[in-house]
């Protein structure tokens, strides 16, 4: 199963991943429209952290033993059978934020309209998550995980 590997050493902190994540999860998937046209652009599902010269972009790790899955009382958070990815079903989420509370990575956030949880979906449907595809320094890689 493919997962995003973070190579902290080579993250430049440019946040292009963030930009592309936002665009990918927007209505139009058009960068200009997303930023300049759509009334509210989606929240990024990738978190670029920066401390001194170290930066890295973190998104859902799709944990094998995912606390968010346990915590989700509606079953909105589920594991995709095919890819093993932890996904959030927008229809089912009621915004109780249990998932936010238990995710040790802090990579689930409230959606831009604050109604439901928003998290990395590995850009389902794309060959490669857009953060990985657009990382100019290959600090993110989409690789088969060890297991």
């Amino acid at each position: 199963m493919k997962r995003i590997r973070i190579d902290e050493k080579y993250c430049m902190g440019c946040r292009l991943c963030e930009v592309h994540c936002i665009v990918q999860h927007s209505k139009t998937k058009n960068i200009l429209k997303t930023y300049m046209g759509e009334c509210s652009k989606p929240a990024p599902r990738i978190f670029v952290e920066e401390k001194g010269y170290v930066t890295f972009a973190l998104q859902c790790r799709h944990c094998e033993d995912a606390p968010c899955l346990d915590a989700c009382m509606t079953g909105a958070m589920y594991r995709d059978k095919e890819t093993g990815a932890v996904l959030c079903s927008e229809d089912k989420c009621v915004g109780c934020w249990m998932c936010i509370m238990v995710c040790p990575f802090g990579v689930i956030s409230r959606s831009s309209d604050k109604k439901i949880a928003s998290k990395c979906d590995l850009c389902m449907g794309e060959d490669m998550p857009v953060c990985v595809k657009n990382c100019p320094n290959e600090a993110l890689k989409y690789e088969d995980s060890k297991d």
Partner: protein
Amino acid sequence: MAKRPTPTEFIVERDKDRCIACQVCVRMCSNDVHIYDADTNTVTSDNSKCVGCHFCETLCPTDAITIKKNESSFKPNANWSVSVISDITKQAETGGVILTGMGCDKPYTIYWDHILLNASQVTNPSIDPLREPMELRRYIGRKPDKIELDYNKKGKIELKTMLEKQLKLEVPIMFSAMSYGSVSLNTCISLAKASHELGIFYNTGEGGLHKSLYKYGKNTIIQIASGRFGVHPEYLRTGAAIEIKIGQGAKPGIGGHLPGEKVSKEVSEARMIPEGTDAISPAPHHDIYSIEDLRQLIHALKEATDYEKPVGVKIAAVHNVVPIASGVARAGADYIAIDGMRGGTGAAPKVIRDNVGIPIEFAIAAVDARLREEGIRTKVSLIAAGGFRSSGDVIKAIALGADAVYIATSALIALGCSQCQKCYTGKCNWGIATQDPYLTKRLNPEIGVQRLKNLIRAWSLEIKDMLGGMGINSIDSLCGNRTHLRGIGLSDRELEILGIKSAGEPQ
């Protein structure tokens, strides 16, 4: 003293209709050109800080940025150009030497562009390198004039010649000296690993050897320069060859200062000097003031390494390069690397870079000719360096007489360098000529290695194509084979020095 404004060199053009204020440019510019205003959610620029490295342009996700040369300037004046006036202004303010980075950019004739290659027609078949063998392997090192054979009791031939240590190059291209310190460790790792995978060599410059690079020792030419940085027994043992650096094409005759702020912990360990102190390379080696002193150092190094490694000498292409090269050969060097005036540098006084030395084309042609005349060309290998831009330049240099070439600037361009010439500031946005950890990580060696390998692969393919066209299937047959070269637009004198005929002249 108050800074007097000089025209900004570049203008950052930002297409307001495309700028999404994502601030990638703001975050990525080490020169603080881009400024984000949170109140208006807009990004503006301070053009005066732009060095024209184009990093922001490359990253901008909406192509909203274009970096343009500022055409507005003082009144046009053929003599007093903007750069001349700017330099004078800077010097009037600081009393300092004008520094620059990378190779000479003055519009001197590039002789490579005045040399044409041959191809077979009718009388001699050209070769299709895709399907037929095409050899690019070269050996660098001292070679005897003749082989010594013996016959054993059974009458079987036995080889008596003990060939001295040679460097085996799968492609006659190597990465020229760039020190760790002047370039980042990731640059060094890229060069080292690529060399390892390509079966060629890279050169440490005077940067010593970082512990993570020891594993590439078999593909490393270690350099000994005047500052002797990082030179210790382990260093000498690790390299495949030792190169005494006498001069550098970009700055013949002068030394260098790696400023203390670039001497990070890691750099300090590789160079074996305390962190944060200047690394000063004197102009000369203080143990070499004459040719016999060079011989002394060559043999000291051979003695120190039990005669197990080739010892080469790198000199800058200067007016007297011919006798100097001859002397170097006689002093016992196993190879001579000649660096032409268009060779790069991390930092050099601009006046030196742009006015001292001669182009590699003349140097390599003249030296090869003289060594042949003196009957010592076969003993020593010649490596040409200094501004090789393409496989075309490479193959012409080899035809003029080089055994192999050193490339550095083109390797850096492969790694991202855009020739902004600001290496000496240590703020290289591409993560190449910097030790700032925020910047160095921008060069991911995994990408770097691949790009370098791609470059060399591409050039190799082209060289094979050109060789095939000439009906040659081994680079051995091209080395020094000037019959395949013709000059165009050159004076008789230039043709004579290059040792080639004019276009239109038959064999």
